[in-house]
Structures are given as C-alpha cells and as structure tokens.
C-alpha cells in the first residue's frame, strides 16, 4: 500500500514537473505580457487540472497586487471589477507578496486567512506562489482546486519552480514592452525632428508670407499627425495676435471672421506670446488658460509655441490634438525648434514685404517728388520749349489750307502729321502743369471739405444728374490747402468721368464722412459705375507716367494726387467697389486747432450771392449773430446799391457767376464785391478780375477768416 502510494506520489510529482516544464517552455517565448499571463493561467489549469488560476502583478505604488489575468469567466469578471489585494495584507496573495513565500490552504472553508471570493465559490484548496525576480517581488500566482487538500508541501516546490520561470518571463515581457515604448518614442522623436527639419528646409525658401504660413500649418499637421495647427502674428498695435493661417475649414472660417486673441490675455496663444514661453494644456477641457474654441470642438491637448526673433515675440503657433496628453517634453523641444525656424522665415518674409511696401511707396511718392522737385527746372524748360509748337502747327495748318494743286491724300496725311505734333506738344505742356501744380508750397487752412468737393464737380461741368452726394451730418472742418485739394479731387473726378464714358447711365457717388478707422480724418469716397480697376493695375496706377488711357494722357494725375495728399498729411487709396466700379478714397486730416473767438464787424448790410448750401448757411448765421443784416440771393440783384458788401461764390450750381458780376458792374457796386473761391486758379482769376471786382479770395470757413475778409 505504502509502495503504491509512493508510486502515485512519484507519478504525480513527475506529472507536475512535466506540467511545470511545459509552462516554462510555453511562457518564456511570449513577449506580449497580456498574452503571456493569459496563456499561463490556461496552461496551469489545463496541465495540472486545476479549477482556477490567476496572476496578480504589483502596481506602481507597490501597495496593491492587481489581478491581471484569471481563468474563465470568473477571471474576466474580477478583472473587469478591478480586483486587487493589499500587498502584505491578510489574503493569501497579500501574504505571498508581502512575505515572499508560497502558502497553501488545504481546506479553504476553514482557513481564516482566505478571502471568501464570491466569484470562486467552489474553491476548496488554494496555493499562492510569489513571483520573484532577483530581489523583487513582482506579483503572485493563485492556483485553486475544487478538491479538498489538493496540494502538498512538495507541490509547492514544483509549482514555485514554475512560478519562478513565469516571473522571469513576465519581467522579460515587461522589459520588452518598455523597450518597445522606448523604440516608439525614439522613432517619434526622429519623426518630429525630421518634421522640424522639413519645416526649416521648406519655409526658409518661401518669401511670400501667406504662402509660407499656410505651408507651415500643412507640414505640421501632416508630419506630426495633429488635428489642427495655426499661426498667429502680432499686429501693429502689439495688442492682438491675429490668426494668419489655420488648417482646413476650421482655419479658413476663423481667418474669415478675423479671429484674434489678446496678447497677455487668458488664451494660451496670448500667454505664450507675452511670456515668450511654450505652453501646453494636455487636457484642455480642464486647463483654465485655454480658449474654448467652438471651431475646434475635439481638441483635447494644445500646445502654444511662441515665434521669437531676437528678443521679440512676433507671434505664436498653436498645435492641437484630439488625444489627451498628446504632447511630451520632447514634442515641445522638437516643435519649438520648428517654431524657431519658422520665426526666422516669417521675419524674413515680413522684412521682404516691408521692403516691397517701401519700394511701392517710393514708386508712388518719391519718383513723383523727385520729378516734381529736383527736375522742376528741367521740366519747366522743356515745357517752355514746347510752347511754340502748337502755335507753329496752327500756322502750318493755315498754310496747308491755302495751298493749291496738292494731292488730297498727301494733304490729309500732312494734316494728320500736324495733329500728331500738336497732340504731343500739348502733352508736354500739360506734363509741365501736372508737375508744377502739386509741387507748389502748401498753405493749409481749416475748410469745409464737402464745399470744396462740390465746387470741383460744378466747375468741371459734371452734370448734376450724374453725381450724387451722401454727406454725414456735422462734419468737422478739415485742414488742407484747398486749392491743392481741389486739384486732387479734379483728377479723381476726371478719372471717374473717363471711366464711365462708355456706361449707358453713368453715375458718380460721393460719400463724405468721418473716417471709420480714425476719427482724426474725414474720408471722401468717389465711386463710379465704370468697369473698375483691373487687379494687375491696382498698384501701377500710382506711378508717375503710368496710364492705361492711351497716348493722349500723361499718366500724372493720380501720382499728382499722391503727392498732394502726402503734403496734406492725408492718404489716397483705390479699390474696386463690390457693387460698382472704381472707388477712390481720400482721407484728409481733421482741423484740430482751436477756432478763435473773434469779434466780427457789425451793422453792415451784406449780400451773399450763393446757392443755399452749408457755407452760405454758416456765413449767414455768423454774420447775423454779429449784428449784420445778411441777404442771400442768386437771381434777384435789383437794388444792390443798398449793400455795403457783396460776397459772390466763385462756383454757383444754379446761376452764372460772370453774368452776375457783369450786372453788379453795371450797377456800379463791383468795387465792393468780393468773389470767394474754395480754390484759386489763374484762368478763373483772370476771367473775373477784369470785371472790376474788388478781389477774388479764398473762401473763409472760420469766423477768424471771415473777419479777415470783412476787415
């Protein structure tokens, strides 16, 4: 009997050893830790015929043994429930891990240390084997049987051997996993560096700013696999970071809405620019500094990288991921390297843009200025030399008409040649006038700009049904040399008239209002319904001698406007109006001097020959207040002898000035008659002065100027 028992025992030992060896062989080649653990519990149960086996691993805190694999549905249920046992606690696993020893409970129903596990109600015997590698306990294996007294002390030795092999395999698998992670990180790092290098390579050769920025966001998203990237640049006020490029539809929509963030504000971009530091929000939902952007609802991680050139932050890059905790410290250093490349490239592109703008500005103003000033004498000389050409051409024309017996074709040809000579001479003479006029010294003074503009249109005989005005109420006075300003508006109106020559119902709309962007200016917009300005000509039109209107134009009108507006401290710009043709906008500075309180002469009888407009209302009100008797008329001129002073507006929409002056001369009151003009031109002066008027003077727009005239 004893011998039979010994044989059985030996057979059991041999079987256990075989099973242990099989477990050892089976597990040592498995490098995936989860697979290794699952296979281990299956092999143990299948080979040893146990009811249940499970593997616990000690967590990072070292306090808990967490069930990582368990046989069957019981195991799955416990893992799902996060089953764990306290290391060095009262459970068998707790003792095995805490005291580094295997232990057996043969009749588990009566064993006080046993945890009565509801998932494993049939367990009658249990063995807990520590998993030890070197000096470290990494976990424990539980083996359970439905048979009472299923394990002997000898079994412990055999199964501990298996557990030791398992522990080594687990450690190997763990190391393998760690190696894999390290490898993945190294690969990611290499990819990030490559992407940074690619950004560096690609962007430094792009000198067009918008193209550069859009290319950058695409490279970042494509190379790094991020959800979104965008580039913000600091605006001129240095108060805002303005989105200049953004990935995809979200970026396009935000740019269209003018998306901008306050520098130093609560946004990550605003903070990164102000602090000149990269900022990361790994779970942006909980990061208080994060701007909750409705256009990018899936962002879970965000990085903001400042774009720094020298010691100045010129903007920032935002990089966003749909994964939580998407960015590591290595990502920051790699992306910041990329951002540094980008900052230099942006700075270069900006410098180039500034250079181009400066060049364009030079083209707009300096060429004209240079022509108009340093070569003024030469232009004057050339113009003078061209003067006799027209006269001589006229003489030749007369000569041709008196010739007889000339071939009619030859005659026509000679007349055509004379026309060409005459046109060319007129052009040279007009160049002289275009250049000399704007170069004259400015005499800025306060003025009603709407009065100046309306006078220009009337003087040019622009039909009233073509031009309409939209004038804001309570316009402030502007400050400018009104003669020069009128010259500029003359060019702009001439342009508008020529642009609408072929339009069936030509329209010119004039809008005058305080400038919306800067209330220190009044903006005058002249909008025609012609074909507009082709985009390719938009910059060229300002250059001296550029014209798209053929050989009969000198191409100096708009460059003269630039010169005049520059001297006026104003601006001129052109654009295509969305609903009409070309739109020219002239911004003229508001008069910011103090209007003197002056005492005006009183007890005078004054006749005002003028339309009922803002200027005549101003003069009537001011002179009446001062105790004068003021009458306004444009037609009724009888009994004018009773007036002490007669003021005639140089431009009347509803009457003829020369006819009125002739009547005043007939009435013998011309010596008390002043013509007041918003701008003075010599032809007009010489047409009116010989009518015996006292003088023709600039129209007074302030009480002080009015007093000077009356005195």
């Amino acid at each position: 009997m004893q011998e039979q028992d010994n044989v059985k025992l030996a057979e059991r030992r041999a079987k256990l050893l075989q099973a242990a060896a099989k477990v050892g062989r089976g597990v040592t080649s498995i490098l995936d830790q989860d697979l290794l653990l699952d296979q281990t519990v299956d092999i143990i149960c299948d080979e040893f015929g146990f009811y249940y086996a499970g593997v616990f691993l000690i967590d990072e805190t070292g306090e808990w043994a967490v069930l990582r694999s368990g046989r069957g549905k019981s195991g799955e249920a416990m893992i799902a429930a996060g089953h764990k046992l306290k290391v060095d606690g009262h459970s068998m696993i707790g003792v095995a891990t805490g005291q580094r020893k295997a232990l057996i409970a043969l009749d588990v129903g009566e064993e006080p240390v046993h945890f009565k596990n509801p998932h494993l109600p049939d367990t009658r015997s249990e063995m807990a084997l520590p998993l030890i590698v070197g000096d470290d306990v990494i976990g424990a294996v539980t083996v359970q049987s439905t048979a009472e007294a299923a394990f002997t002390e000898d079994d412990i030795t055999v199964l501990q051997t298996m557990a030791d092999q398992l522990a080594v395999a687990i450690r190997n698998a763990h190391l393998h996993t760690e190696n894999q992670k390290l490898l993945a990180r190294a690969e990611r790092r290499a990819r990030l560096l490559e992407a940074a290098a690619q950004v560096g390579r690609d962007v430094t050769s792009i000198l067009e700013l918008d193209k550069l920025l859009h290319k950058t966001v695409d490279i970042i998203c494509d190379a790094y696999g991020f959800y979104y990237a965008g580039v913000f640049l600091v605006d001129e006020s240095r108060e805002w970071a303005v989105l200049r490029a953004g990935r995809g539809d979200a970026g396009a929509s935000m740019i269209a809405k003018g998306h901008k963030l306050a520098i130093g504000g609560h946004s990550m971009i605003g903070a990164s620019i102000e602090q000149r530091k990269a900022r990361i929000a790994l779970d942006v939902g909980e990061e208080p500094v994060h701007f909750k952007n409705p256009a990018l609802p899936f962002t879970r991680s965000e990085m903001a990288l400042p774009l720094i050139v020298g010691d100045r932050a010129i903007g920032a890059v935002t990089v966003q991921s749909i994964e939580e905790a998407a960015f590591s410290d290595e990502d920051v250093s790699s992306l910041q390297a990329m951002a540094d490349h980008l900052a230099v490239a942006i700075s270069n592109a900006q410098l180039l843009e500034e250079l181009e703008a400066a060049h364009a500005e030079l083209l707009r103003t300096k060429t004209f200025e240079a022509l108009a000033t340093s070569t003024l004498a030469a232009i004057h000389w050339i113009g003078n030399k061209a003067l006799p050409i027209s006269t001589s051409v006229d003489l030749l024309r007369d000569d041709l008409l008196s010739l007889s017996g000339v071939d009619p074709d030859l005659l026509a040809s000679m007349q055509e040649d004379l026309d060409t000579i005459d046109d060319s001479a007129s052009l040279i003479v007009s160049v002289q006038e275009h250049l000399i006029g704007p170069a004259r010294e400015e005499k800025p003074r306060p003025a009603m700009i709407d009065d100046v503009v309306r006078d220009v249109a009337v003087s040019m005989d622009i039909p009233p049904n073509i031009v309409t005005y939209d004038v804001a109420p309570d316009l402030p006075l502007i400050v400018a040399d009104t003669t020069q300003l009128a010259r500029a508006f003359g060019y702009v109106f001439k342009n508008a008239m020529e642009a609408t020559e072929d339009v069936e119902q030509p329209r010119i709309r004039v809008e005058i209002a305080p400038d919306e962007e800067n209330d220190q200016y009044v903006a005058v917009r002249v909008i025609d319904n012609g074909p507009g300005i082709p985009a390719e000509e938009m910059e060229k039109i300002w250059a001296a001698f550029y014209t798209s209107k053929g050989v009969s134009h000198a191409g100096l009108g708009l460059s003269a406007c630039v010169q005049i507006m520059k001297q006026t401290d104003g601006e001129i710009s052109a654009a295509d109006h969305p609903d009409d043709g070309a739109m020219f906008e002239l911004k003229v500075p508001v008069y910011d001097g103090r209007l003197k309180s002056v005492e005006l002469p009183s007890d005078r009888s004054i006749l005002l020959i003028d339309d009922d407009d803002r200027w005549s209302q101003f003069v009537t009100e001011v002179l009446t207040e001062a105790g004068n008797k003021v009458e306004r008329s444009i037609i009724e001129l009888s009994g004018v002898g009773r007036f002490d002073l007669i003021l005639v507006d140089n431009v009347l929409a509803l009457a003829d000035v020369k006819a009125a002056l002739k009547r005043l001369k007939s009435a013998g009151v011309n010596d008390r008659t002043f013509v007041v003009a918003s701008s003075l031109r010599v032809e007009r002066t010489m047409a009116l002065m010989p009518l015996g008027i006292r003088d023709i003077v600039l129209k007074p727009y302030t009480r002080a100027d009015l007093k000077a005239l009356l005195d």
Partner: protein
Amino acid sequence: MADARILLVDDERLVRRSMEKTLFRAGFDVDTAEDVSGGLALFEEALEDEEEGPFDIAILDLNMPNFEGVEDANAGLKLLSKLLELDDDLPVVVLTAFDEVERAKEAVKRGARAYFVKGREAELLDIVNDILDESE
C-alpha cells in the same frame, strides 16, 4: 483793328517768333523785343514815331531778365508799370508759363487788362481782339 501796332516782349526766341507770326498773319503790325530794356526802348521810340504812331497794345512775358539783366520772375510786371507810366490807357496782356494766381492778380492790380497762360495760344487772338474792341 487789324492794322493795330503790337509790342511783343519775350525772351524765348521760338515763343516770340511763333506768336509774332500768328499776330502778323492776323493782320497786326508786330514789333518784338527779347528783354524789358529792349521793349521799353521800342515803346519810347514809338511814342515819338510820328509816322507809325504809338503801340496800341503790349504783350509782355513776366519771367525774363530785368532791367539789370538778371533773371526775374517779375521783370514783365516792372516793364508793365513803366509802360503804363508812359501811357496809362495802354492795354497790356501779360504772358507767363507759370499758372500762378497771385502774380496774375498783381498784374491786374498794376493795370494789366488780361493775363494769358502760355500754351493756350489759340486763345491769344481772341483776347487781343476783345481788348482792342473794348478800347475803340
């Protein structure tokens, strides 16, 4: 008054010659001078000329050498004053290439009947004829 005597003073030879021809063809008797001194001398001589009589009208450039021979933008104005001292009824047309209001007004204040901007010669005959018609 097609046979009226006209004094034309301008230092630009070609301008002077082309205007002279224009006026001559219109039937005027034209004498020319290239500076203010020459112009004054011609005018004074004509006052003594019993055969042809004094000038009926003077056309003066403004910007030319003055009586001291120095280039002067107001040389013509000075000649204008001198001519009107000699004949206060003389119709004078001033010429200049400068489109400048104050100089024009000054010319009128000194007694000029008209101011003519060079380069618009086609209107010259009209101006001269108008002034001569008014003088008759």
